Structures are given as C-alpha cells and as structure tokens.
C-alpha cells in the first residue's frame, strides 16, 4: 500500500484540505494542480476546501480492500462541498438507512487505515452528518 514518503507528500491535502484555484476560471482544484485544465493558467492561487457539503452519491462497501477489513461494512460517498469542490470520502456516524443523496455532511479528522501491525498510521478526512 502506501509508503511513508507517499503518505507524507499528501499531508497538506489530507490533514487540512489544502487546494488551489484558477482566478480566471473561478474554479478550485482539490488536490491542487499545476495547470488549470480549462484555460491553461499556471498561476494558481493557494486555497482551502470548505468543510461542509452534501452527498451526491453513496455506496456501502461490503467487500473491502484488506487495509479496510476492520471497518467494513462502511459507506463511501462523493460529496459536493459548499465551494463546489467534489471529493470522495467515507461517510461515518450515519446509520445506513439514513444515507441519502443530498444529505448534509461535514468533514472530520479520522484514521483511514493502519499499515498492518507495525507500519505507519494513515490519517485523513471522513464525512459525518451535519445536523
């Protein structure tokens, strides 16, 4: 799976939602990009993603990849944040029967998985219902 350097490189995005944006197209990119795919602008400004949004689609993973075995079954969704950024993440603290398109959610900091018994611990964002 992941390695310490690969994990470390994504820390700004995963821990605190660092993004960037094209001022010309008024579009925010998460993860940050080096070039705006729409207009070719390379002068992108630092930005942060919103911490709230709503569920666009969701599923419940019953057959998980091995690092996620202990968590299954769990919900994964695509969320559109208030700033228009769309991201994927687990939706936790929500009974499966309450999952629906349009559900308001907010970001919480969670442990994503462990690298076996002795490897690094991998953290990041998940979504919880925003009541």
């Amino acid at each position: 799976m992941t390695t310490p350097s690969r994990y470390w490189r994504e820390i700004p995005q995963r821990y605190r939602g660092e993004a960037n944006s094209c001022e010309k197209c008024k579009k925010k990119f998460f993860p940050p990009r080096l070039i705006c795919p729409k207009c070719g602008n390379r002068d992108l400004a630092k930005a942060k993603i919103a911490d709230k949004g709503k569920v666009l689609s969701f599923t419940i993973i019953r057959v998980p990849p091995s690092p996620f075995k202990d968590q299954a079954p769990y919900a994964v969704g695509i969320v559109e944040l208030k700033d228009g950024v769309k991201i994927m993440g687990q939706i936790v603290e929500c009974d499966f029967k309450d999952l629906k398109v349009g559900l308001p959610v907010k970001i919480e900091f969670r442990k994503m998985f462990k690298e076996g018994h002795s490897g690094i611990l991998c953290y990041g964002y998940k979504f919880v219902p925003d009541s």
Partner: protein
Amino acid sequence: MEGIVGYGAYIPRNRIKVEEIAKVWGADAPSYKKGLMLEEKSVPSPDQDTITMSVEASKNALKRAGIDPIDIGAVYIGSESHPYAVKPSGTVLAEALGATPEVHTADFEFACKAGTEGMFVALNLVKSGAVKYGLGVGADTSQGAPGDALEYSAAAGAAAFVFGKKNVVAEVLDTYAYMTDTPDFWRREYEYYPQHGGRFTGEPAYFKHVTGAARGLMKKAGMKPQDFSYVIFHQPNGKFPFKAGRKLGFSKPQIEPGWLVNKLGNTYSGSSPLGLTSTLDIAKPGDHILLISYGSGAGSDGFILKVTSRIEDVRNLAPLTRDILDQNKNYLEYGEYAKFREKIRKAD
C-alpha cells in the same frame, strides 16, 4: 492577564452500558452502578484515536479562540494512549491545525494527569512570553483489561485549551503541583492493558494527591472552598470526586456541572479537562473555578480560574460538552465493542 482564550471538547458517539459489560463477565451490574456511580461509557470507533480526537477538540477550541493557527507557538497532547510508541502525536495535530513549522511540540504521559500537564506548560510558556498562544490537550482512548473493574470506566474523549494573553475567557489566577512516587497504576512497555493496586489506588494515591493539591493551591492563593463557584476533580469513577469534595469542604452543586463520569466514563487524560469544558459552558463572568487533576504514579495539578465576560461571546461558537455527551449516541453490544477495541484475536 494570561488564561484560556478558547476551549473545545470531543467525545465519540459510541456508548456501552455497564449492564452490557457485566453480562459478559457474570458481574453484578447494580453494584457497579451504585458503588462506582457509573451507567455507561464512551467508546472510540476503530477510526478514532488520541490524535483524531485531539484534532477535533482543538478545532472546536480554535472556533472559540478565533485566532490564526499560525500564531500557536506550542502544541502539547497529554495522553496515556498515544497511537505510536515512538513518533509524536502532536506533530499530526499541529499539521492538521496549520500551526507548523514554527511551533514547539511535545507529547506528555503521566497516566490521567498528562492533559493538565500539557495545559500547565502551554500556559507557562505564554506567561513567560516565549509563545503568543499555546495549545494544551488532554485525550485518551483508554483500555481496561477485559473483566477488570477498569473495563467499566475506561473511556474515550478529548478536551483542548488555547492559552493566550489577549481576549481570555478565563484568567488563570494561580497554579500548583503536588507529586510523590506512588505505584498505584502502571502499564509496562509492550503490555496492552494497565495494572493497578486495587484499593491502594484510593487513600494513599487519589485522595492524598487530590486533597493535597487542592489544599496547597487554596493556601497559596489565600482562598477557601466557598470562594469557588465550581470545582472539577479527576473522575476515575463517579464516587471519588464527591468524596474528595466532602473531605475538602465542597458541596455537590459546586461539583456537578463538571461531573460527567456517570455517562462518559473515565477519559483519563481527558477527564478533568472535559469537566472544565462543561463547567465553562455554564459559568458566568466573575465565577472562580478550581481544577484539580490526578494521575497515577502519582500527582495532581491545580489551576484557579476566573471567568471573564468574554465567555458569553464565544460559548456558542462550538458544541457544548453536555450536548456532545447527550446527543447522537450509538449503543454497542459487547461483541461490537470488543471488535472496536481490538480485543478479538484475529489472523493476520
């Protein structure tokens, strides 16, 4: 004057009732409920640990503090359940808040006292002028051995405090520490569960240090129990804080707002700090608050706080501790609890 500029709490939503644990071990639930005044405790999900709870509690503290995280010069997490044996928890917290790289970070461990240790050091760095703001967090996902008395209380939660000199919601008027070497509770390296000295954890350990710290601090400050609107003691079970209060001359109404243990359990390093958050949630400007922690090993830290008028402005900028505790609960059966707490032996 320096003091708390923002505070925040975090408690996982999972709970397990005393009856559910007692059922598994053939124990007498009513005696635990009456004897230890415990009803249920919080349980972390598999994706929650000291680090994740510290981040969420600290985010709540920052909402109330309204400061730029880059101005935080010190980040300390006190816990006896740091997820790594070697590798700091505080660096994750500092990164998640956006306080890096000009920040001093350390992890504290002193059984249940580590949280107030972090607060103590953060406060004193602010006081000395070494940092503009300091963050002290108490957090734990405590483990009691299956079937042990501790299993009924060992819980999970976090409380975070930002200290500064401007816009404080509670001034820290005085501090005190009282410590001896007393082996009442310990966990050796590579051991999964802690061990304890049974009744030895009471009089010579908890009560001696809690009352010693409270008396010493009040004497130092020239104050008496009646001068305080509220007092928070470390809460290993429901009974101990009330008994300590009686010994010192505090009344039930002074203790109750910060007494969360019956519904929360013992959150170890988060215990008395969480009690402080729920007390700040209801305190009025001018109120004096006494906070006395306890950590086995053993020692107590004491703080005298005076609430300012700013409390009214910031209180509702983050969730209130009693609301977090009472809302959105998810009750677990023992099997699920055992799975969440990794008490089940599995294949690789």
